[in-house]
């Protein structure tokens, strides 16, 4: 309640492993404590404060008892006054320590979460492409958001609440015992029922919670699909059907909420009942004991007062237990990312790469994880410095795969790729990305201006450099003609631009970098051929003296290459110049014939 509302399960993605067993929980706990490192002292201090506040909370009823027994009943006004002053001091101490406790606990907790966010993201980005093939984008985003945030509630107040509830119960028990063992036994009468009820509630509610989480996730993705897909939905006049489906998922969510309330209804009623019932027992049985003279009236009063404060903690513990459990599950998943060793690993003692050189692919064999058939099977090819190599071949032959391996987005299972005589495995990633740049098949635009999107390629480029690069491509006027020029916001995924314009932005990034090898994976499919040709020609001029690998589907592009490699069935079937390959009368000749049929050259 004090949290002011979290993200409310925002982007939660439902996971199979919501629960950890005991040993896993212990491992997670130890890991977190180790990782907390620099915050350990602040955290320890915070714990100390928590203990003091709990002691202060317990001191209240004890002082009241003392005041009643030694002050009021003994008709000793001085003792009563002293008790009142002591109580005031306790309140003042509790206030000061309470403030310190919030700040200390939060600064340790938030520091920890910050570290966690940064570590997880760093590690995520270090992973190879294979990792991103495997993991769904939504799940990775959920790790960095819902999973981390599920802990922030704990950090803000949950952990403190949990600890103080726990300590309160613990100390209170001994306190009660020290005042009167008979009355303690009496007040414990309701506890077995309460604990049994709490266990059942805890179990039911965690099931209900999982169900709600799953339904919230489903509902949110239905919502999101309804928003992002609205154009298609309207185009096919499917609004009513979509609304009907959404209602269904929404009603299901409602039902799961209702179920979770039902699960808790009897429990909260029972807690309310037990709280009052136990004071009834204390008054009844305790009164009997007072009559017998075995306990004092003040003790009975103190018990009544203390018990009233004990039922909240019980209730809170059973609720927080769920939160703690799901936080542990989240941490477990986050640690799994931190621990994942990237399969394309950076060398610890990198050899510097020369500024130019031949790119040599030697006998590489590569299969994507999970597929038995290799995507490339014992492939060798050499790209001589400053030349142009075109990769052609049917869909799924392995062209893009070869291009990706040449830039070490994956490591081959066998064989090697080297640049200027240095195996790419021995080079540093920084060197490597400076020398070999890939323009991927799908040009992804980030939310931001056209300029922001260009600068992804070279964040420190000056305005002059940027404009000069666009000039060289002959695209400066085109972009400046947009309503706000380079500052035009492209919106989510570039939706504000036409399909071709999006590709132009993605392509222009290439002009900003100055690599030794440029890999272009058919980045021009949505352009009109006129623009495409202009750009390609410009890029070609730009890349004079540099090596270019182009995955192409058009004859015109292919013809201008120094060498053409036909990739078929995971292998390089033919390699040579256009004329040589046509003369060979094999795959390429056939392909060229189809092209000639479909293109008026």
């Amino acid at each position, binding site marked *: 309640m004090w949290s002011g509302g979290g993200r409310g399960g925002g982007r939660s993605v439902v996971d199979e492993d919501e629960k950890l067993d005991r040993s896993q929980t212990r491992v997670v706990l130890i890991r977190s404590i180790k990782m907390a490192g620099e915050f350990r002292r602040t955290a320890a201090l915070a714990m100390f404060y928590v203990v003091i506040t709990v002691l202060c909370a317990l001191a209240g009823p004890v002082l009241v008892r003392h005041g009643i027994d030694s002050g009021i009943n003994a008709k000793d006004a001085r003792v009563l006054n002293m008790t*009142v002053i002591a109580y005031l001091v306790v309140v003042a101490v509790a206030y000061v320590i309470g403030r310190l406790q919030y700040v200390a606990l939060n600064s340790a907790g938030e*520091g920890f979460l910050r570290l966690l966010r940064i570590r997880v993201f760093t590690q995520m980005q270090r992973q190879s492409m294979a990792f991103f093939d495997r993991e769904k984008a939504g799940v990775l985003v959920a790790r960095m958001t819902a999973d981390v945030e599920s802990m922030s509630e704990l950090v803000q107040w949950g952990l403190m609440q949990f600890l103080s509830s726990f300590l309160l119960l613990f100390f209170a028990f001994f306190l009660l015992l020290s005042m009167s063992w008979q009355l303690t036994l009496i007040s414990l009468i309701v506890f077995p029922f309460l604990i049994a009820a709490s266990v059942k509630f805890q179990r039911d509610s965690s099931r209900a919670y999982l169900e709600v989480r799953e339904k919230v996730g489903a509902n949110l993705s239905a919502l999101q699909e309804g928003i992002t897909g609205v154009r298609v939905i309207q185009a096919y006049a499917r609004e009513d059907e979509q609304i009907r489906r959404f209602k269904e998922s929404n009603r299901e969510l409602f039902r799961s909420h209702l179920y979770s309330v039902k699960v808790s209804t009897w429990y909260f009623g029972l807690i*309310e009942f037990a709280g009052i019932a136990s004071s009834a027992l204390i008054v009844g049985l305790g009164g009997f004991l007072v009559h017998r003279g075995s306990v004092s009236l003040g003790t009975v009063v103190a018990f009544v007062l203390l018990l009233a404060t004990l039922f909240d903690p019980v209730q809170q513990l059973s609720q927080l237990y769920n939160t703690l459990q799901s936080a542990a599950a989240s941490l477990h998943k986050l640690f799994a990312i931190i621990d994942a060793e990237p399969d394309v690993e950076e060398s610890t003692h990198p050899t510097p790469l020369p500024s130019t050189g031949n790119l040599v692919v030697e006998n590489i064999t590569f299969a994507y994880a999970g597929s038995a058939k290799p995507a490339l099977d014992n492939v060798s090819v050499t790209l001589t410095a400053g030349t142009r190599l075109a990769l052609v071949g049917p869909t799924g032959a392995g062209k893009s795969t070869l291009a990706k391996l040449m830039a070490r*987005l994956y490591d081959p299972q066998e064989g090697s790729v080297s640049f200027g005589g240095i195996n790419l495995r021995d080079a540093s990633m920084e060197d490597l990305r400076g020398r070999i740049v890939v323009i991927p098949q799908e040009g992804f635009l980030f939310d931001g201006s056209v300029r922001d999107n260009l600068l992804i390629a070279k964040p420190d480029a000056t305005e002059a450099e940027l404009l000069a690069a666009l000039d060289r491509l002959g695209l400066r006027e085109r972009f400046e003609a947009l309503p706000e020029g380079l500052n035009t916001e492209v919106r989510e995924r570039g939706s504000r631009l036409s399909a071709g314009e999006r590709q132009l932005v993605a392509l222009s990034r290439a002009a900003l970098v100055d690599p030794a090898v440029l890999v272009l994976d058919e980045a021009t499919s949505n352009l009109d051929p006129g623009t495409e040709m202009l750009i390609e020609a410009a890029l070609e001029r730009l890349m004079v003296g540099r090596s270019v690998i182009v995955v192409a589907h058009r004859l015109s592009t292919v013809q201008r290459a120094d060498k053409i490699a036909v990739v078929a069935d995971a292998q390089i079937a033919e390699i040579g110049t256009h004329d040589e390959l046509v003369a060979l009368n094999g795959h390429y000749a056939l392909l060229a014939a189809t092209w000639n049929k479909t293109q008026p050259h």
Partner: protein
Amino acid sequence: MTNEAKGVTREGWRLLFATLKLQQRALIMGACVGLAWTLGKVAVPQLTKLAIDRGIEKNGSLLLWTMLILAAAVIAGVFAGWRRYIAFRESRLTETMLRERIFAQIQGLHVGYHDKAQTGQLMSRSSSDLQQVQGFVVNIPIFVSQITMVIGVVVILFFSDPILAAVSLFPLPFINISARSFSHKIHPAVMAVQQEQAQLANIVEESVSGIRVVKGFGAEAVQQGKLNIEADDIRRESMRAARIRSRFLPAIDLLPSLGLVAVLGLGGHRVINGDMSLGGLVAFNTYLTMLIWPMRNIGMTVAFAQRAASALLRVNEILSEVPAIADAVEPRKLPQAGLAQPVGAVSFDNVVFGYDIGHADITVLNGLSLTIAPGESVAIVGATGSGKSTITRLLLRFYDPQSGSITLDGVDLRDLTLSDLRRAVGVVFEDTLLFNDTVSANIAFAKPEINQEIVIRAAKLAGAHEFIMQLPQQYDTVLGERGFSLSGGQRQRIAIARAIVADSRVLVLDDATSAVDPTKEHEIRDALATVMRGRTTLVIAHRPATIELADRAVLLDNGVIAAVGTHHELLATNEKYREVLAAWSSPQVVE
């Protein structure tokens, strides 16, 4: 607060009451149940007092008092549970109903609205804003019972001992005030944290979705830099919130203790002097503790109500948006196809259109006129960004032209119902969006009830059947973000199958085969020719072979149709046409 702001707030309250009115009866029921709980709860300290004074001190019957307290316990327990149930049920119901309304509204809003709205914004309207409303509604029954409880308890205290009551109750209003002020201060801080969290989520989302670009350019450090800034921001804002909590919460927790101290001190002396019974003192104490939580909660509920009102205002911004593109008041029907009357005539007459981007002078189409006969197929050729896709969007009536008109079979699009129009026009968009559903469901999107054979036939025509059979569960494979990811070419083929199933009188193919490789495109082209036969078709394409499928080609340039003819005529006669298609005699011309 300015007058305008006051007006807005009043509007928010009005909305809140209107919303609650729908659930009036259940909420009143909840309040009544809450009152019953109050009775049970308030009786307890009185009974305890009597038990101590008459039962313990005066050696009276303990059993009677114990049973009475137990009876009060049963009442309080039963009604507490019941109240909770009603409160949650009703608040979830409010949330659920509002969310349905928002979704329905979103589905009906024009594309121009969606161009400007951000997905994240719309999402948070229907999730976190509704939670604010829910958070208030759930408090209503408790609020009512707590208010009555506070009143009841205060009255009892003043009757039993006015002076002691005045002194011990003194700190309580401060709890209420602090709770309110806390709630006001913490809200913006929490919102700021959420804002930062959303920004971080955005960076992660883009880095992951655009990982190929990030890795291709080695831009990991750039993204890491952005993320670190957000992580720092989150920490800073969270600490700000923590400091606000630290300023208020311990004080709110401890203020009531001052009342307890006063009772012990003052009351203690009274008991010593014989002016008050010990039971009375205990009862006083218990009553005071009973007031702590309600006082806090009342303060916070007031703040919750304000928050709910402003959340509803934001929600209402969506709900009150009038769709700019809507059904005609008196819609006309499209003529039915008959033997003597082929359908599918499309005509653009002097159409002027520009997107709403705050530059009224920038138009995409400048008086475009184009007439397509029933059953005819036309290829639209134009440079990148010339407005080809815009024509498609206008034909679907995603936007209305600024001037000029578009007709389908002689009826102005604005005189048709949207669903009639859109059922008559089937489109394959240039960027294919598939839904998180099975392959079959995606293909049968336009006609969910259609049988499997037709789905398979469409998939075969679109050249998709082959690879679908290779998928893990063939036609039952789930696609989309959470499902199986297909290559660009494969997605396009599914989208083509989807349009084939729609079987509309006008078919629009917007660059529908751009990601399909040439050898495969060859096969699809034959299939498309079958589908296009006798059906009005607009083809947007860059590849000559695809353009040749159409009876006629038109060149779009400067927002008007610059030339019309067959592909070969245009190649022969039009310089611009050749330029767009790069159909120079030799590619070296450009160098």
